[in-house]
């Protein structure tokens, strides 16, 4: 376990090595939140509520969704693709650790770093500018914490899956980009899932994506009742377990037919 914690620390150091990325990140997220805030207030116009959400709930939803994204989002799929393409994966395989586990920990290190040095300060800044509503209820915060941890795992597992496909496709830049758009849309980051047409909502129920962004944001804005929240978190957990299976299968196959590129 020690080595995994150490990896989180190393990731912290790496994030600190590139400070400019970090500052521009805050700026980009603030702009995004601002843009969505004005878009939604225009859509709401005079209306008090759409689909059971008030305009303040909506802007909180948007802000939280983006800030949660800072935590669960990572580029380990792109990193894996690069490592496999350049043959660096050989070096990873001569170390006594689980490659995928280590990648997950790197993602977590990145996520924790962004959560504390990026999401929290960002949220403070945003709350000065836009009217947001924070829950005072401790259980909501607790549910939220569990929920974003699970969304991190679901998103990371999907990233691992995408990353492993590089072993078979050798170049999957397109796939990685498509995956990112699909996740942003179907996870409810851009539009809450309850705004989707009913048939689409029915389909999305059977996909893991809403566990990434929609669930934690709905919990945070108190748009879920406690019961609904618990159910949603259990569903997230189920997805985390289900996604382990394809990852393990693909990983075993990938290792068997691994080719180290470039000598």
């Amino acid at each position, binding site marked *: 376990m*020690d*080595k995994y914690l*150490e*990896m989180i620390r*190393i990731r912290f*150091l*790496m994030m600190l*090595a*590139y400070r400019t990325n970090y500052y521009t990140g805050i700026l980009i997220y603030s702009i995004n939140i601002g843009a969505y805030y004005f878009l939604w207030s225009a859509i709401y116009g005079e209306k008090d509520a759409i689909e059971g959400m008030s305009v303040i709930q909506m802007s909180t939803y948007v802000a939280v969704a983006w800030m949660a994204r800072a935590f669960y989002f990572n580029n380990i799929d792109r990193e894996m693709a690069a490592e496999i393409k350049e*043959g*660096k994966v*050989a*070096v990873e*395989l*001569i*170390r*006594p*650790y*689980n490659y995928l586990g280590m990648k997950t920990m790197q993602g977590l290190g990145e996520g924790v770093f962004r959560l504390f040095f990026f999401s929290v300060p960002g949220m403070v800044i945003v709350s000065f500018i836009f009217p947001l509503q924070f829950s005072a209820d401790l259980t909501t915060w607790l549910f939220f914490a569990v929920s974003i941890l699970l969304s991190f795992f679901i998103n990371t597992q999907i990233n691992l899956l995408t990353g492993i496909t590089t072993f078979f496709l050798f170049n999957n830049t397109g796939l990685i980009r498509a995956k990112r758009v699909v996740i942003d849309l179907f996870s409810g980051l851009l539009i809450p899932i309850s705004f989707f047409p009913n048939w689409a909502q029915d389909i999305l129920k059977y996909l893991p994506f809403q566990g990434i962004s929609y669930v934690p944001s709905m919990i945070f804005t108190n748009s879920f009742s406690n019961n609904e929240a618990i159910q949603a978190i259990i569903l997230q957990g189920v997805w985390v377990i289900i996604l382990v299976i394809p990852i393990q299968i693909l990983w075993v196959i990938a*290792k*068997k*037919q*691994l*080719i*180290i590129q*470039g*000598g």
Partner: protein
Amino acid sequence: MKDAITVRNLKKEFKAYSSRSGLKGAFRDLLTRNYKIVPAVNDISFNVKQGEMVGYIGENGAGKSTTIKMLTGILTPTSGGVIVNGMNPHRDREKFVSTIGVVFGQRSQLWWDIAVQESFRLLKKVYKVSDEQYESHMAHVIKTLDIEPLLDKPVRKLSLGQRMRCELAAALIHNPPLLFLDEPTIGLDVLVKLRIREFLKEINKKYNTTILLTTHDLTDIEALCERVVMLDDGKVIYDGALKSLKEKWGEGKEIEFQFLEEVELADLNKITASSEVKWEKDEKKAIFTAVVEDDDELISLLIAKVVAALKIKDINIKETSTEEIIRNIYDRGIS
């Protein structure tokens, strides 16, 4: 003594895809692709004893790196058996790799953006090295390789020679009984090379570390290894002492003469007509080389004859260099 590495009938085949030519070919490639099975390593067997330093040589593409990758558990063999440190490298990978150290000359295993000592610290945790072990062992390694002043610099700011020394230290953090070095001296200057060689000799002596070394720099092999395994086209073509390789394929000795006066090849041939000598002339430097069998009698007789007949500026007796022998073998094959 125990065998560190046992390789039995090891084979690795790759699918090599070939693209069809032209636009039409490219479209056909979308549907079906041509490929053929290429053996990179073809039925090789050898053993390495604990504490041996073995040079693993061969031309580019002979299958050296592929073998190393199978021995380190990165690649799965197509068939055949590999036992390293008493384990199957690929099956017991996570347990196995903590008993080996690997240096890939062409790839860095340190983290690019962070200071060297941070990489060391992580590796120390990864290999579960205790503080005392680390202190006593690494203090020595760091001193011998002279990397103390580099420890707080990020890897991207190091020169190649500095980086390679750090890589070597990183591979030794857990003091492994077996060390794989894949072209560790590629692109390094003479001083760094010498230092690395000295260091390798030292740890071999001190800890009885087994070292398997691939390189294209044969002076590395000469300095370090008593035994070489030579690979060509995926097959072992020679496995034995470096010395007997020289004796077997070395083509006698070369004696270089420089004369004070103008000399023609014909003159020399006339002088030494009674013994079996082949004369060669280097036009530019006016050096004449006599290639003779490695026989002391013959050599002194030859020199006596030449000295008696001509005035001499310089004489030089040379053994055929390993490099030349190896080049000849690559060129002509082993037969």
